[in-house]
Every structure is written in structure tokens, then in C-alpha cells.
């Protein structure tokens, strides 16, 4: 995967993608704002959510042991997995033990993070994604681009093409004469997947929350595909990141308010399923839970970055991020895109390991919108700055990065009054150059350059550049003081 600036440049050139994204994020933002506005205690809920998660993380070892004991008492088998490879091996092993060659899946970030589908395929087991958007992504042999709406980058005509071309090879083909009407497309997915739900012996899910005290797992969804997977097959395996723990059942009263409103901008998502182990006569009679580390303990060890483990994957930070809105999710090169991805990936993988991960803390304007939107008050800008310094430290001694060169040049100029004076006089020259390149006036009266020669054109092709002032503050000061 290329570093963010390279990937972003490609994404930015795709005007269709930019339009789709702007529409989608704008729509969700407006819905979210409306339903958050309904809740008078919203700020208190955010504080409560952050406090519960922080308390849990500070005693994570104790809560994990409580969770394990409660799950076992309710008839579930608990597995622990240090990394992706180990987690995938557990799931593949359970599939092998039951002789299944296919599993149905509930949309889950954790299973994407560990690349489960690919590993199962190596073991001859096909994993069917059953969330509509994930199905579109899977049939299109594509990558998800958003936590919540993974196929946000595809329009209805493309989806129709994917269904017509690919559904037949994966099972029940798309109906003849399928149009690109969303209701018809959803209908085609309903028929295609129902066949799989009714036949599947084993399902794989994640969990939005895992209640330590009662051993309850919670999955939040809209379509009912989650309920299908969680109740129809005989065997259920849930892959759960160790940061998903909340101590008590009653703590959910905070998160079941925060999550849907932040995520889809609804008062409540259509379906929430909660189950504690095996219920005789209802749902799967064999249940496994894989507790996954895969870098979470590394993130936990970072005192500033630890707060990222509070994340409930609502995706609100993506929808308010001006960088995400223009580049989309693929540029982040990870299942966790957007502002949360920019901090979570380096925290999970460590800095100085690969260039792509190291580029992510710079994929932000530090505008702070993500912090405002985050239902568990993760101070993403603070963590970004913290990680940037780690990246710089990790690269000290190697070839200097462009941003380091620029900072050095700036500090050379700014640290000396005479040099600063000279630099400022340079502004006068720039001003004279203004007349040569189409001059404009911005709202508010400030002059702007609308067309610069290359390399300035890379900037001015897409936006206006406010012109430097005619006169520097220091020269004005000298003149006025006379």
C-alpha cells in the first residue's frame, strides 16, 4: 500500500468519488446533528462513555478474566489470540472440526482487520459477507472505504453491474431484468443471501460490546443479516477485540444511546441483538468467543494513545473530517480509515515499521472536528501530534523528510530578526508578481491568487490562494511609529 500522500493524490483525481463522498458524509452529518440535538444530556453521555471506557481500560486484565469466566459459565468456549494469524487459525480450526466449507458473516471490523476471509479461503472455506454493502464490496472484489457504509464509493449503476456479473458464480444469480432501483437491488440481495442463511451451519461475527459481568455480547445492525447469522446456524464464532469490554450490563445504557445517534444518525438502529452464551432451544447451541489482542496491548501501553481504545467504531469522525471527505477511505490503506484510522493504525502496528503507517498521523488538518463529533471524546488531534513526534523520532538519523526540511528552514528564518526582515521584504516582490497571475478578491476583501505557475498550480487549480499582504507588519510598524 502506498503512503497516504501518494494514495490520496490518486483518490483526489477521481471526481466521481469526491462527489459521492461529499454527498454521503454531508447527509450523515446532517442526520447526526439533528438526532444529537434531541438529547439534552448529550455532553454528559459523552463524559460518561469516556469515563466508563477509561475505567475499564485501566483494569482491563481484571475485566477480561471476569468476561472469560462469565462466558464459560454460560456455555461458551473462550479462545485467546495474540495476533491475526492466531485468531484466524482458531476460526479455521472450528470450521474444520465441523467439516463446513462455507460460513456466513456479520459485518465486523475485527475480522477484516485480521484478514479472516482470505485465511479461511486458504483452508477451503468460503466466507460469505451478508451485510449488503459488504456483499457489494466482496462481489466487486473491492475494498471497503468507510466503517459504516463500506460501499459508499459505488453508485447504483455500478452495483447493478456487479450483481448481474458476479451473483451467479457465488450462488443464486441476480433476477433477469434487474434495474438499478435501490429497492430492487436490495431485493436481489435478499433472495441471494436467504439461500445462504438457510443452509449455513456456521456463522462468524464480531461484537460491538462485551459485558464482563454477565458474559453478554451485543451486535448492532440494520438489515437483519446480523440476526440471521446470530440465530440460524448451529455454530457461532465471535471475534472480539479485547478493548470491547464494558464492566456491567447497566453500562450499556450509555453506549446504546451514543452509538446509533453518532453512527447512522438514527435514534436507534433497527436491530440490536444481545446474547449471553448458549440459550437452550434458541439460536446456536455451540458458541465460541475469540479474544483478540493484535496490537491492542501495544496501544494500551501508550499513555497518550491509549484513549483510542475507547473507540466504539461509530464513524462519526470520518463524516466530519475534511481530509476523509476528499480522499475517501482507500487512501488510508487500512480497514480503519479516517481520523480514527490515522491514530489507530500506528498505535496497533507501531511507528517506524513501514512508511505507509508512518504517513497516517500526517493525514489530517488538525482542525479538531473529529474530537467534537466523537461520542467517547477521543482527543484525536492530541494523539495525532503525539504520534507525529514519535514518527519524527523513529526517523531521526535517516534521510530528512520534506516536512522536517521545511520546519528547519522556517526555524532558521524565524529565529533571527534580520533574516525575518529580509524574508518579509520578499513578500513585496511576490506582490508585484501578483499582477501577472489572474488576481481575484476573496469574500471579505482579501486579494487572492487564482492561477500560479507550476508548482504553485497544484494548489491553485483547485482553490484560491490568499495573497500575501502588500506590506509586512514589521515595516508597517516602523512606518506608523515615526
Amino acid at each position, binding site marked *: 500500500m502506498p503512503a497516504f500522500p501518494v494514495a490520496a493524490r490518486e483518490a483526489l483525481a477521481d471526481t466521481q468519488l469526491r462527489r459521492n463522498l461529499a454527498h454521503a458524509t454531508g447527509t450523515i452529518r446532517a442526520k447526526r446533528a439533528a438526532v444529537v440535538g434531541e438529547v439534552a444530556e448529550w455532553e454528559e453521555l459523552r463524559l460518561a462513555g469516556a469515563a466508563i471506557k477509561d475505567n475499564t481500560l*485501566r483494569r482491563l486484565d481484571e475485566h477480561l478474566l471476569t468476561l472469560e469466566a462469565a462466558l464459560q459459565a454460560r456455555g461458551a468456549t473462550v479462545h*485467546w489470540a495474540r495476533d491475526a494469524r492466531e485468531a484466524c487459525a482458531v476460526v479455521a480450526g472450528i470450521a474444520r472440526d465441523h467439516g463446513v466449507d462455507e460460513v456466513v458473516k456479520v459485518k465486523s471490523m475485527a475480522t477484516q482487520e485480521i484478514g479472516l476471509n482470505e485465511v479461511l479461503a486458504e483452508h477451503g472455506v468460503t466466507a460469505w459477507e451478508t451485510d449488503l454493502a459488504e456483499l457489494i464490496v466482496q462481489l466487486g472484489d473491492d475494498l471497503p472505504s468507510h466503517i459504516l457504509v463500506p460501499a459508499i464509493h459505488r453508485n447504483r449503476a455500478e452495483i447493478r453491474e456487479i450483481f448481474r456479473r458476479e451473483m451467479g458464480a457465488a450462488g443464486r444469480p441476480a433476477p433477469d431484468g434487474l434495474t438499478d432501483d435501490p429497492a430492487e437491488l436490495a431485493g436481489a440481495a435478499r433472495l441471494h443471501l436467504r439461500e445462504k442463511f438457510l443452509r449455513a451451519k456456521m456463522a462468524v461475527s464480531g461484537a460491538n460490546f462485551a*459485558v464482563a459481568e454477565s458474559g453478554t455480547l451485543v451486535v448492532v445492525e440494520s438489515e*437483519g443479516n446480523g440476526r440471521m447469522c446470530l440465530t440460524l446456524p448451529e455454530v457461532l464464532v465471535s471475534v472480539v477485540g*479485547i478493548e470491547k469490554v464494558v464492566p456491567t450490563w447497566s453500562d450499556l445504557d450509555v453506549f446504546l444511546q451514543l452509538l446509533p445517534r453518532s453512527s447512522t444518525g438514527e435514534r436507534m438502529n433497527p436491530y440490536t441483538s444481545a446474547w449471553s452464551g448458549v440459550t437452550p432451544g434458541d439460536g446456536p447451541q455451540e458458541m465460541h468467543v475469540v479474544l483478540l489482542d493484535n496490537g491492542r496491548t501495544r496501544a494500551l501501553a501508550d499513555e497518550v494513545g491509549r484513549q483510542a481504545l475507547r473507540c466504539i467504531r461509530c464513524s462519526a469522525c470520518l463524516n466530519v473530517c475534511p481530509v476523509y471527505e476528499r480522499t475517501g477511505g482507500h487512501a488510508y490503506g487500512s480497514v480503519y480509515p479516517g481520523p480514527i484510522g490515522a491514530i489507530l493504525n500506528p498505535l496497533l502496528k507501531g511507528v517506524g515499521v513501514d512508511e505507509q503507517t508512518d504517513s497516517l498521523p500526517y493525514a489530517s488538518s488538525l482542525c479538531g472536528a473529529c474530537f467534537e463529533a466523537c461520542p467517547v471524546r477521543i482527543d484525536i488531534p492530541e494523539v495525532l501530534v503525539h504520534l507525529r513526534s514519535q514518527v519524527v523520532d523513529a526517523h531521526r538519523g535517516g534521510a530528512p523528510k520534506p516536512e522536517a526540511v521545511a520546519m528547519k528552514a522556517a526555524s532558521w528564518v524565524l529565529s533571527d530578526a534580520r533574516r525575518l526582515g529580509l524574508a518579509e521584504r520578499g513578500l513585496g516582490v511576490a506582490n508585484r508578481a501578483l499582477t501577472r497571475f489572474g488576481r481575484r478578491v476573496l469574500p471579505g476583501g482579501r486579494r487572492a491568487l487564482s492561477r500560479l505557475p507550476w508548482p504553485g498550480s497544484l494548489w491553485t487549480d483547485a482553490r484560491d490562494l490568499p495573497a500575501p499582504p502588500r506590506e509586512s507588519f514589521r515595516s508597517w510598524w516602523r512606518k506608523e511609529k515615526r
Partner: protein
Amino acid sequence: MTAREEILAAVRGALRDADRTEAAVPRGYRSATAPDVVELFAERVVDYRAGLTRCTTAELPGAIRAALGAARKVLVPEGFPVEIDGTAAAEAGTTAELAAFDAVVTTAALGIATTGTLVLDHGPGQGRRALSLVPDIHVCVLREDRIVPGVPQAVAALDPARPQTWISGPSATSDIELTRVEGVHGPRTLHVIVVAGPPSGRV
């Protein structure tokens, strides 16, 4: 070391210097109330594009019939308190058999006013989880006094030992160009019947 031991050791190592005292969690949100919970619940249910009927205990059988419309094969879980003509009570049955039913009628454990949510805990009258999932029409009967103001009151009233399904409107997706489409896999039609009457009345 096993994976379990190693992960627990890594957690403890990561928290070596952490202050383990619990920070206070503000809980004022739990005392927030809604003015008229039944009105609000009804309004929010409709907002979710679910059908809504309000009736008395005496009117209930008629209301159920009307809500079922043209549905012929109707599933009624064990313990459902009202006799419905010409329907099969189908507790048993494979999933494939369930799929042959047009509709299901259930009760619910409670309703949440601020969110228009029904919560099923799959006790008598509600059936196992698959029953309210596979047929295309779900008619759910809820007595007025089972409606609580908000999510905190619902969580407090529910027992995590029971499996739960929280339902807010019919199954829906917005995955295609953010256009909302009712139903992909769950029932595409949800009809809620809110029954007024003395708290001791059946249903």
C-alpha cells in the same frame, strides 16, 4: 506461555504505571424523563415507517386481524395471549419451515418511548429469536404500561441472562447511495399495536 497468559501479561505491563482508581461516571442522564411516554412512543414508531394501531383489550383481536391484512400463514408463538382464527401456532419447525410463513404475531417485553423501540426478550408470547425474523410481516402487540421513557430505564428493567432483540422500525438498509430501503433480510413490514387498558388485563 499460552496466548492467554501472554495477553494478560502484556495488559498488566502496559498498565504498570497507570492509576487504577476508578473515575466517577456522571449518571444524571438516568433521571431524564419523557412527558407522555405513550404518545411519544407512538410518534416515534410511526417515524420509523412502522404501522401503528392503538386499541383497547376488547378491540385487540380485530386489530390483529386488520394488521395481518392478506397474510394467510400466520405464526403464533406459544403463550401468545389472544386467540387468532385460522392460524397455526408453530413453536417447532425448521428454519426452512419458518420461511414458508407470511407473518408472525408476538408480544414484547417492553417499549422505549424516546427511540420508538420494541424489546423482545423471547419469553412466552414472543417465541425464539428466529420467529420474529424470518417471516416478512411482524405484528407486535405491546401493552401501554410496558412503555418506559428511555434507554436507561429499559436497560435497568431487562435481564442480560435472556437473549434480547431490540427492534426499531422494519429491517432497513441505506447502503445504496444512502437511499433508505425497507427490508433486506428481516421483516419488511412491522406493525405495532399499542393496547390501552387496565394493567392487569391480559396481553
